[in-house]
């Protein structure tokens, strides 16, 4: 502790990523008085009085109501030190009006209510009614909200535009990939150099054959971009230019990447020793096994799509679908051949993605689930991980990416795109998949919101009247029948003539 409000941390050696750790919740300094208060006997037992439920902090908002099952309410902290709205942004931010509040003291919103909606239908409808300011787009509502053009550009539907709703998109700092297990003799190539080369060619052929652009279009409503390597956009080292295209899988045509033809993939397969999907030595058809998580019939179309991709190379794909727990167990134990996984950035540094392929992490509990080992890659990783961002680091990353593109330990799947909608009365919203501290900069126009809610949600009372009228009319025959029956005299006994 340097003084009452300052503490210092000494790091042995160099660790640039430490600044990112400081931004994570577990590094928030806690007053010892709060810790002592909640540690008293009887605070938790039966009363649920705990620090994580009634947090203490110095941020722009106080959590005044905390019921994650229903709603959480945040009130502006009157003791907040204040933070000026940024005066600098990314290119285009000023033109988009995102810097209009530059220099003003945040937070701008007095009270923020988070409501929990477990089901997509009421959540979406309440957003359309104006009772929620922002919304994500579920796959069920995607067509109602967004149109994706031929070039992959997304625009709002006329219905959304009419309401003044704004669409914001951003590519997530995440990657979703198909991994090969390097402990497997077929796809990993254990043994001599020839076996490794054979497996490498096989992996490359599969990488070409799996059409991720089609996958994104069919299964993600176009919300994603095909991966060119392990790094997603937004992470230092990712290249937007033609050097960013993966030459193993794509040709560059008119400055744009075009997936190599299936004939090319079949040719690589033949070089790998599997012409027409059969082992050239034994003549046996090549069967590969994919482990994936599947929860029910909804997954059938996705699993069939995987089979079709492998069938392009005459490879028989056996899918071993299982639940998440068993899947994790198999991946951890290395009892897989092919499997799907994903990774969300912990912090915006290339080290956080490239370490997924670092050799020493290829253990049961390590994050190198592919168990990929390449000494050249590992050496470059050790050199790169503690460097500051700059041309030198970029050059090393380029070399590392080139190595793994050639080795193809993963089929570089895709990086998902986040789409979010906000109403016309919400200002300063800019999606960020890494920064979680933008709430204090949001500004709302409450008068407009109130006006629109009233305009959009005028109650229609006539249907209730109609239902009532139908019920009354429906009971009328019953009533008349009852009256008739009550007035009818008992039939006299028939006497013989």
């Amino acid at each position, binding site marked *: 502790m340097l003084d009452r409000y300052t503490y210092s941390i000494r790091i042995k050696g160099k660790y640039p990523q430490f600044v990112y750790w400081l931004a994570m919740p577990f590094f928030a300094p806690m007053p010892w008085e709060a810790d002592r208060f909640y540690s008293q006997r009887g605070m938790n037992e039966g009363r*649920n009085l705990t620090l994580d439920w009634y947090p203490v902090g110095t941020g722009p908002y106080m959590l005044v109501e905390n019921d994650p099952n229903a709603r959480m309410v945040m009130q502006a902290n009157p003791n907040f030190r204040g933070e000026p709205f940024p005066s600098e942004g990314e290119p285009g931010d000023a033109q988009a009006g995102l810097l209009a509040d530059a220099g003003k003291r945040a937070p701008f919103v007095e009270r923020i209510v988070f409501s929990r909606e477990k089901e997509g239908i009421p959540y979406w409808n309440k957003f359309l009614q104006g*009772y929620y300011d922002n919304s994500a787009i579920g796959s069920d509502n995607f067509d109602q909200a967004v149109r994706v053009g031929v070039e992959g550009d997304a625009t709002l539907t006329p219905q959304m535009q009419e309401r003044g709703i704004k669409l914001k998109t951003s590519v997530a700092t995440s990657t979703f990939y198909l991994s090969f297990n390097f402990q497997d003799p077929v796809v990993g190539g254990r043994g001599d150099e020839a076996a490794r080369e054979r497996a490498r060619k096989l992996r490359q052929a599969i990488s070409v054959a799996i059409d991720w652009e089609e996958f994104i279009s069919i299964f993600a409503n176009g919300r994603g971009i095909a991966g060119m390597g392990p790094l997603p956009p937004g992470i230092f080292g990712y290249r937007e230019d033609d050097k960013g295209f993966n030459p193993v899988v794509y040709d560059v045509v008119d400055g744009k990447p075009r997936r190599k033809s299936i004939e090319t993939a079949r040719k690589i397969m033949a070089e790998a020793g599997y012409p027409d999907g059969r082992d050239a030595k034994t003549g046996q058809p090549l069967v590969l096994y994919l482990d994936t998580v599947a929860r029910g019939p909804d997954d059938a179309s996705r699993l069939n799509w995987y089979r079709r991709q492998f069938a392009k190379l005459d490879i028989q794909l056996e899918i071993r679908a299982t639940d998440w*727990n068993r899947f994790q167990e198999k991946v951890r134990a290395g009892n897989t051949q092919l499997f799907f996984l994903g990774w969300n950035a912990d912090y915006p540094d290339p080290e956080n993605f490239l370490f997924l392929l670092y050799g020493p992490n290829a253990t049961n509990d390590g*994050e190198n689930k592919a168990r990929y080992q390449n000494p050249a890659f590992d050496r470059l990783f050790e050199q790169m991980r503690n460097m500051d961002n700059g041309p030198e680091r970029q050059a090393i990353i380029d070399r590392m990416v080139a190595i793994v593109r050639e080795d193809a330990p993963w089929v570089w799947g895709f990086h998902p795109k986040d789409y979010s909608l906000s109403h016309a009365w919400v200002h300063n919203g800019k999606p960020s998949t890494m920064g979680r501290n933008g709430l204090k900069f949001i500004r709302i126009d409450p008068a407009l919101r109130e006006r629109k809610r009233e305009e959009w949600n*005028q*109650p229609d009372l006539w*249907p209730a009247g109609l239902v009532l009228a139908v019920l009354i009319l429906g009971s009328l025959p019953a009533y008349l029948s009852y009256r008739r029956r009550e007035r009818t005299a008992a039939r006299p006994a028939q006497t013989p003539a």
Partner: protein
Amino acid sequence: MIAYIVRRVLYAIPILVGVNLITFALFFVVNTPDDMARMQLGVKRVTPEAIQKWKAEHGYDKPLMFNASAAGAGRLTDTIFFQKSVRLFAFDFGNADDGRSIRHEIARRMWPSLALALPVFLVGIAVNITFSLMMAFFRGTYLDLWGVVLCVAMMSISGLFYIIGGQYLVSKLWNLVPISGYAGGLDASKFLMLPVLVGVVSGIGFGSRWYRTIFLEEMGKDYVRTARAKGLAETTVLFRHVLKNGMIPILTGAVVVIPLLFMGSLITESFFGIPGLGSYTIDAIQSQDFAIVRSMVFLGSVLYIAGLLLTDLSYTLVDPRIRLG
């Protein structure tokens, strides 16, 4: 009667042990304590040490059912099953995996569940009796025929359809009440109107048909013929005699579900955003929180057994011919 109640309570113990055993077996067939630890700790950077620590802190570091390394009775008692089960019988539910008291959560969440379930239950019975009596009164006519057809049609429609349709028509199209949500106190009424309406309407098909059968059976009995022979009006026969006797199976059938009203409805609460015990259970299943799942199943069983006991007792109240011995 006291001896009967005591005997029934004692019978309940092996039933509850069995229920607990089945819940335990079903849960741990698909989830190991390691899976539970990973679920709570997150999938990234989870070390074996962290898993062991979590298991030790939450009492999952013992064998499941049989501890071969222990001696004597410890072989059975020093296990997860025994340690987790024995406290339940004292209604000590312990803490959920996130460290929060389950008893506290149940006490807090049962009120929203009850606020939804009780009106559905009471209004539902009233509506079903009215509808079924009408069908019974007009038995053999087109009104009865179309009433039964309507009931069968309503029974055949999924409960989810009523919810989604109700939300679409009443809240989205007509803007009469909020589509979902909940608030405490009197404010709850505006949020509860639609789920109650949906609950009642979705139950009309089954309830009315069942009650109609009961009333028709009563109407065929001798005492009804005698009442008619005395010259009583059909409405008097129906409301004073048939309804009274028909209420015996209806009331006893209703009593059994009264205790379960506290447990909430899994789907309705989820769709209408009501923070009750139904949604608490669903969340626990999704997060693999065995402590909550076990507690809710146990509580459900206890309430069901209590309901059955109350049903037996209610028989003696509504039918003087029955004596419990």
